[in-house]
């Protein structure tokens, strides 16, 4: 945080100083602008840093990198790996990272509201015919009657943090089941590992988690799957985003990045969304993803988790703008976000197809 503050501060000072310099020596301005622009949009490889999580859900971006789609667009991509969604957004706001691919959270919206970030494309989306996040009950709570998400009222639910995507999903389930979210006792645990620990030991009654972890827990008898989030909310979970500076000053670069990323998505969808169709291709792609995900496990052990974690990703990175708008409104209704902005302030629809756009 101090580093970020310093950088932003430094940038403010520099831009302030620049403004003064240009103001006093107006003649310099025309000479200045084109030269800096041509440096950024030069024909040579542009270096961009991508903030990603080591999840199977980030796979399209690894595919685009490994298969040279970024190189085709003249982009020299470097990855910077993070442990959670929030730090990626902060790193983009501070200028350390150019593109991010993580879940939308309350903190993300607040950074975007302050003008630091723009959502430019869609990624993981909850859809009815494809497995997404699952709702799990602890064995004790299941035996005591918690057998469907509708029965969550009066129970505790582990989340990482207030304002996280888990918090939001709990809210949408409560809404669909027809009881106020306040009837679920939310337990912030900070980390997914701590959530799993609390569920296994019965200290919390329930949690929501990605499919491959849910299946593993259910199969091991450590917890019971009692429902799926996609039955309650069509939900744009993760998005592609970048800094406001990038979309304003380097739109051509953003376009090239999105093009390469869309090719990665096309490859991913062709193979991973129907893994039985071509086992050889599935195996090859799993090996590619394994270079980034579950690298501490041998391939044989990692492959089932990688394949089970292949969640649905929007075609061509289409963005469900209507759901982004609904998410902003939900956080505002919870009193977690200021009400002085809406989705139009944080979404830039120039780069991918936007659908479900509110009037």
């Amino acid at each position, binding site marked *: 945080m101090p580093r970020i503050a310093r950088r932003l501060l430094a940038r403010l000072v520099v831009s302030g100083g620049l403004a003064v310099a240009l103001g006093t020596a107006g003649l310099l301005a025309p000479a200045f602008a084109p030269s800096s622009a041509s440096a950024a949009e030069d024909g040579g490889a542009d270096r961009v840093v991508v903030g990603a999580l080591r999840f199977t859900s980030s796979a399209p971006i690894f595919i685009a990198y490994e298969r040279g789609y970024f190189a085709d667009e003249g982009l020299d991509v470097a990855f910077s790996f993070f442990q959670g969604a929030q730090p990626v957004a902060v790193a983009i706001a501070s200028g350390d990272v150019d593109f991010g691919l993580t879940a939308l959270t309350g903190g993300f919206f*607040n950074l975007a509201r302050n003008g630091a970030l723009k959502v430019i494309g869609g990624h993981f989306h909850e859809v009815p015919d494809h497995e997404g996040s699952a709702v799990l009950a602890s064995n004790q709570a299941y035996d005591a009657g918690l057998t469907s998400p509708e029965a969550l009222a009066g129970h505790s639910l582990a989340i990482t*943090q207030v*304002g996280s995507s888990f918090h939001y999903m709990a809210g949408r389930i409560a809404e669909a089941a027809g009881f106020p979210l306040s009837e679920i006792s939310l337990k912030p*645990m900070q980390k997914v590992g701590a959530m799993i620990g*609390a569920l296994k030991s019965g200290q*919390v009654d329930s949690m929501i988690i990605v499919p491959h972890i849910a299946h593993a827990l259910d199969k091991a008898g450590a917890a019971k799957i009692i429902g799926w989030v996609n039955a309650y909310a069509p939900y744009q979970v993760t998005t592609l985003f970048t800094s406001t500076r990038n979309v304003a000053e380097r739109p051509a670069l953003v376009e090239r990045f999105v093009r390469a990323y869309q090719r990665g998505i096309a490859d991913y969808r062709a193979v991973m969304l129907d893994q039985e169709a071509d086992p050889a291709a599935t195996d090859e792609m799993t090996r590619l993803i394994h270079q980034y995900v579950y690298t501490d496990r041998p391939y044989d052990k990692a492959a089932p988790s990688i394949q089970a974690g292949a969640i649905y990703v929007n075609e061509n990175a289409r963005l469900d703008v209507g759901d982004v708008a609904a998410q902003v409104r939900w956080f505002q209704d919870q009193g977690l976000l200021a009400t002085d902005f809406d989705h139009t302030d944080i979404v830039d629809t120039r780069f991918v197809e936007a659908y479900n756009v509110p009037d």
Partner: protein
Amino acid sequence: MPDVRPQDRRPVPFRGGGFRPHPLPWAGPAVFLVLLAVWEGAARAGLVSPLVLPAPSAAAAALWSLVESGRLWLHLSASLQRLVIGWTLGTAAGIGLGLCIGLFSLARAGLGPVVAALFPIPKIALLPLFIIWFGIGEGSKVATLFFGALFPTIIATAGGVDSVDRTLIRMGQSFGLPWRDVVLKIVLPGALPAILSGARISASIAIILLVAAEMIGAEYGVGAYILLAGNMMATDQLIAGVALLSVMGLTVAFLIGRAERWLLRWRG
């Protein structure tokens, strides 16, 4: 000794004043106000973006909305309850163990190294264990504060007992005072200043640990509020929450100062 004529005599002013501090009650608040004014001015003039550092007025507004919604009391009461229980138990146990270490050779030889080994362990690192031992409810939170307050109190108390004037103790013993009276009337009062300054430190450590203790499973609490503000990137609320912690620290320091004056009034 040569005679000095009266007209050669000069008055010599007292020069040995040293750097004696004298009270300037206006200086502290004045520095505070100037800092706040500069900060507010910089934010109003747009020199500092609200993301980098929100204006004091924005933080005050966040605090006010907390008061208005009634959540301030929920957060404060949850934290104060944890603080009072954890710190009181920790301090009581610390004074007891510290006295034992100070008075009994066996306790000193046996417990001294244990305390030295356990004190530097960050209690935040033990939080996952506390959760397994005491659950995600109040138990793990109170335990974090308890252990945070325990060790500094043990060390301050044992040190205080060590620094009690030996001649006073020997005199009491020579005059045939029973052991109990030596402890209650000589050792304990003599160690009290050190115990109280230990209490200042342990109370501050307990307030610091509040944020860590409320990381897991806490719906309300000043620490939980600060964590939420951090998650939400709501920097105005973050500053408001930190200010609340500062006020708690000031209040505790004031109360311990009062206790010091009352308990040590025998020093005159």
